[in-house]
């Protein structure tokens, strides 16, 4: 899948801009604070309907304006052309059109356009809390199958409903103090969470098993040496089954008024050279691992879908030493790449097109 053309209206620091990409590599070059990341953000917004910087939609609308418009012309490998248009409003209600047809639910856009993003913020995948790594896994599951988005949101909703119920009855800290009706209600929430949460755990475990060799390979390509990378996704609840785990933690859940076990509490433990990445790996190793996670996901989505997503690399070169930067550029996956840099590109990079970005204007040369 290739983005041929992107048009922005009142998006971030762009009043109006039009950009043509090549099917190969397009470099966005410009000084700090000119709009390189903003452009990448607009493009990837159409794939996920959210900012990869984790900010709310109203931040994306140009200061002083009510709405922003992002429009992209996309070409699929079978030659199909798709025009995607999103109107962002300050209330957070996005209006989305595909080929001029309004989508009833904006989320039906997921899967129409696919991107893989790496940005400096991805260091949080290694350094941040378990939630960062859960989001990484869950985003990847949605990327390989858009329908996973439904299950992901179901798990989230069941946990929130169960927590709301626990809070309502939480003053009864002993399960035997619950009325028959309360026990029955909690039982059915447990059953539903065990069913859907259990499936989500299986999906994550399967994904981790698929990703591990791909991450190892991507890391090796970047570091130009064999480096053991290990993943452990083994939450306790998966060993005994979520139904039993929920039963076992019922008293604790009642006391705390929240669900203390389940997929919403999991972590993915990662190690480099046999040592935990979060606490032991060097800054450069952590960056390399974060990038390897993205590149591996990119490959997995490519293999699953049969064609590569658009690879967006924001400021990746400033993150790596010259050898690793060169290694990245020589092992660049096939497909369309959009790469930003504030300090020009090394000579090993051969972009097909260079766009210069200055104060929200794009010039081609």
């Amino acid at each position: 899948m290739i983005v041929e053309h992107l048009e922005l209206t009142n998006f971030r620091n762009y009043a109006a801009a039009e950009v043509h990409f090549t099917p190969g590599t397009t470099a966005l070059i410009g000084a700090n604070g000119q709009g390189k990341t903003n452009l990448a953000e607009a493009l990837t917004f159409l794939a996920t309907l959210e900012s990869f910087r984790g900010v709310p939609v109203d931040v994306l609308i140009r200061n002083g304006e009510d709405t922003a418009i992002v429009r992209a012309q996309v070409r699929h490998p079978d030659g199909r052309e798709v025009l995607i248009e999103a109107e962002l409003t300050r209330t957070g209600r996005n209006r989305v059109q595909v080929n001029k047809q309004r989508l009833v639910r904006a989320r039906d856009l997921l899967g129409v356009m696919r991107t893989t993003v790496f940005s400096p913020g991805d260091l949080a995948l290694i350094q941040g809390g378990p939630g960062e790594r859960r989001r990484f896994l869950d985003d990847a599951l949605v990327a390989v199958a858009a329908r996973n988005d439904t299950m992901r949101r179901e798990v989230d909703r069941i946990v929130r409903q169960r927590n709301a119920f626990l809070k309502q009855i939480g003053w009864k800290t002993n399960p035997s103090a619950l009325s028959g009706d309360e026990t029955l209600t909690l039982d059915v929430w447990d059953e539903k969470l065990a069913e859907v949460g259990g499936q989500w755990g299986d999906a994550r475990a399967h994904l981790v098993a698929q990703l591990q060799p791909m991450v190892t390979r991507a890391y090796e390509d970047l570091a130009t040496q064999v480096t053991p990378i290990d993943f452990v996704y083994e939450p306790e609840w998966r060993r005994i089954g979520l139904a039993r785990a929920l039963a076992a933690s019922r008293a604790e859940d009642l006391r705390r008024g929240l669900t203390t076990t389940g997929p919403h509490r999991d972590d993915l433990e990662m190690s480099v050279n046999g040592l935990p990445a979060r606490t032991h790996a060097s800054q450069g190793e952590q960056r390399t691992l974060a990038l390897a996670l993205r590149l591996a996901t990119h490959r997995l989505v490519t293999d699953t879908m049969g064609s590569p997503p658009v690879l967006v690399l924001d400021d990746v070169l400033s993150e790596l030493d010259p050898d690793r930067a060169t290694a990245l550029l020589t092992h660049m996956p096939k497909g369309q790449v959009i790469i930003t840099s504030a300090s020009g590109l090394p000579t090993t990079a051969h972009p097909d097109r260079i766009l210069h970005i200055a104060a929200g204007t794009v010039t081609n040369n």
Partner: protein
Amino acid sequence: MSAYTPPVQALIDELGRLPGVGPKSAQRIALHLLKAEDHDVARLAEAIVIAKKRVRFCERCFNIADENLCPICTDTRREGSMLCVVEEARDIIAIEKTGVFRGRYHVLLGAISPMDGIGPEQLKIRELLTRLEPETVREVIVCTNPTIEGDVTAMYLARALSTLDIKVTRIGTGLPVGGDLEYADELTLGRALEGRHELRD
């Protein structure tokens, strides 16, 4: 810091509390009403008041009714041994359109949703339980929405009825997940009804 005078703002606020009406639409409807002829507005207000006064819930099944009982409950040709449980009265209309179901209904007036403060006691579940024996119901078909809350309500009912000698079934798959029953087309809904499966706990 409303730009409207208090009466206009009050109207906008009231309209905004209606289901499916956001702040923008509330504003648009309010301004439309203020521009409309006096008698048109009076007619609308009257229609609301009269409907609210005359229409009530069926005493037995909680469908919309204008007598004590709704037309379905009084229709002797309906199969009394089959009871279809739905969340809202509008779901009855959707199911009736399929022409597949000839039994009677029971409206819960919602689904279990702790976040909205709705538990089994807030729903017409006790009323459902008291209907089963006198009406010699053999099968309860749970047609709550294909959402988390609809599913959990169905599971709750299956457990609550498990001690009785009654078959509890759930409407089949094929319905768009996460949606409302009323959004499914007649064919899909009809098929889902015919493809119902037994719920056990």
